[in-house]
């Protein structure tokens, strides 16, 4: 039975989640050099188009179609067949099925866009598009089905409120694979890659945070108590992450920076994502603190490992998703959400083990399939820009545009 309040809420949340993708484009765009700002923005923006199209034809059906052996949805919702204004029998039964579909579409859009920060400033547009669509089909859709669409991980009891596994862990693992496979930027460790416009990055941070209320709050799929809990936990973890990163950086590097504050906020928001609707406010503070601290350490550790994850997708999204999924195994409480589980701190160590199994399976699967897709795309059309084109910058060499006229 359709509830107008739930429907209105999820429609607004879908719009909020959509806004995160251009927000991400600004977040990333400000951190690259000025010759690559449009190319970087384009890599996020075009996902709205490419992945939405993929989603309505096959993605939604693969993710949320009737389950086949716990592994994938069947093709009965091909081209949105049967996805109408009537509610689904299975998902979010108080809103039109098509509203659930478009809300989930926005998650599918932003996930491959998140990966682009890892290989910023050095890939060609056409093979990049091919990689992203293939990744959406062969990584995002199956993993989404396993956790949220009636697949085996959800059945096993793995919980992920709004995408700590489905969104952040998958994009973080793919980012690691991609930046190693594609190689570092020309001049890595010899030249300086200074962010060209941090105010742009901060505007992006604000838009991401704003959108995150739809991302996490809306994942309750109703305008109810769980949505309220998730909304509040989201804000609490974001602000705790920001403060933690700032304080740690101030102590460790000598000065608090705006990029640090922004990074800490995103780390806290990413970390709370899997847990948002399952934990209370004090747990959210603890999770934001862990997110800010551990993601800071992860970003510092990058320099020791020597891979060029240009904009720290692994350190912030991958590690944030990982830490949040584990933290859910610690802090989840059925007193907050009776539909969830109790974590280790609430007397149920078994749930933590379940979460680790989810992380292991999704991590390994994403790693292997992302590697195969990259190698496959590379064999047909090299992802890497030619040296000269990379020097000129993506804006001119890939798009014949420049962001700033002298």
């Amino acid at each position: 039975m359709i509830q107008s309040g739930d429907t209105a809420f999820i429609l607004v949340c879908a719009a909020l989640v959509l806004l995160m993708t251009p927000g991400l484009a600004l977040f990333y765009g400000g951190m690259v050099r000025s010759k690559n700002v449009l190319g970087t923005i384009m890599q996020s923006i075009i996902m709205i188009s490419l992945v939405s199209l993929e989603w309505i034809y096959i993605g939604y059906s693969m993710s949320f179609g009737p389950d086949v052996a716990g592994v994938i949805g069947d093709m009965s919702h091909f081209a949105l067949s049967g996805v109408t204004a009537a509610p689904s029998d299975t998902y979010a039964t108080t809103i039109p099925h098509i509203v659930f579909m478009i809300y989930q579409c926005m998650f599918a859009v932003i996930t491959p866009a998140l990966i682009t920060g890892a290989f910023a400033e050095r890939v060609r547009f056409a093979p990049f598009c091919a990689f992203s669509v293939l990744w959406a089909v062969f990584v995002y859709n199956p993993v989404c089905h396993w956790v949220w669409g009636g697949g085996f991980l959800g059945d096993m009891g793995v919980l992920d409120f709004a995408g700590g596994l489905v969104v952040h862990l998958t994009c973080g693992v793919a980012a690691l694979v991609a930046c190693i496979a594609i190689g570092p930027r020309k001049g890595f460790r010899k030249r300086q890659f200074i962010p060209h416009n941090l105010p742009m990055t901060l505007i992006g941070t604000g838009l991401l945070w704003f959108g995150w209320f739809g991302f996490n709050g809306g994942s309750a799929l109703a305008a109810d108590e769980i949505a309220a809990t998730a909304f509040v936990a989201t804000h609490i973890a974001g602000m705790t992450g920001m403060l933690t990163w700032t304080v740690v950086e101030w102590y460790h590097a000598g000065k608090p920076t705006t990029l640090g504050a922004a990074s800490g906020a995103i780390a806290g928001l990413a970390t709370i994502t899997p847990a948002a609707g399952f934990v209370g406010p004090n747990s959210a503070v603890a999770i934001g603190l862990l997110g800010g601290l551990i993601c800071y350490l992860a970003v510092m550790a990058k320099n020791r490992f020597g891979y060029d994850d240009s904009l720290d997708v692994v350190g912030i999204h991958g590690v944030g998703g990982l830490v949040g999924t584990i933290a859910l195994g610690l802090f989840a409480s059925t007193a907050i959400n009776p539909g969830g589980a109790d974590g280790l701190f609430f007397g149920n160590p078994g749930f933590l083990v379940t979460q680790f199994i989810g992380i292991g399976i999704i991590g390994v699967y994403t790693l292997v399939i992302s590697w195969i897709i990259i190698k496959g795309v590379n064999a047909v059309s090299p992802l890497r820009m030619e040296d000269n084109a990379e020097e000129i910058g993506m804006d001119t060499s890939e798009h014949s545009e420049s962001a700033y006229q002298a």
Partner: protein
Amino acid sequence: MKKIEVITRNYKLDDIKEGLTSLGIKGMTVAEVKGFGRQGGHKEVYRGAEYQVDFVPKIKIDIVIDDELVADVVQAISNAARTGEVGDGKIFISPIDDVVRIRTGESGSDAV
């Protein structure tokens, strides 16, 4: 006639302009430039990674004046721009053969 070329801190521009106009100097050319001297560059930190920014933003002021004004002008600029810290900048003085005002064709001191 002499050309006075000053390279100094950006934020000293207004003080220098005031000092010079009070001496009756009627025009100047100002450019934003980058470079380094003994001050060197400065360090910036992004997500814990340190970057050395070698070229420090400065301003360059060019004026052309009659010879007898040189001592006063140099004094006025020094007074306005001096902080006593490294990076105050330099004043270069060089001879000028002639000056022509394009609009009227006047030359020499009349054209300054």
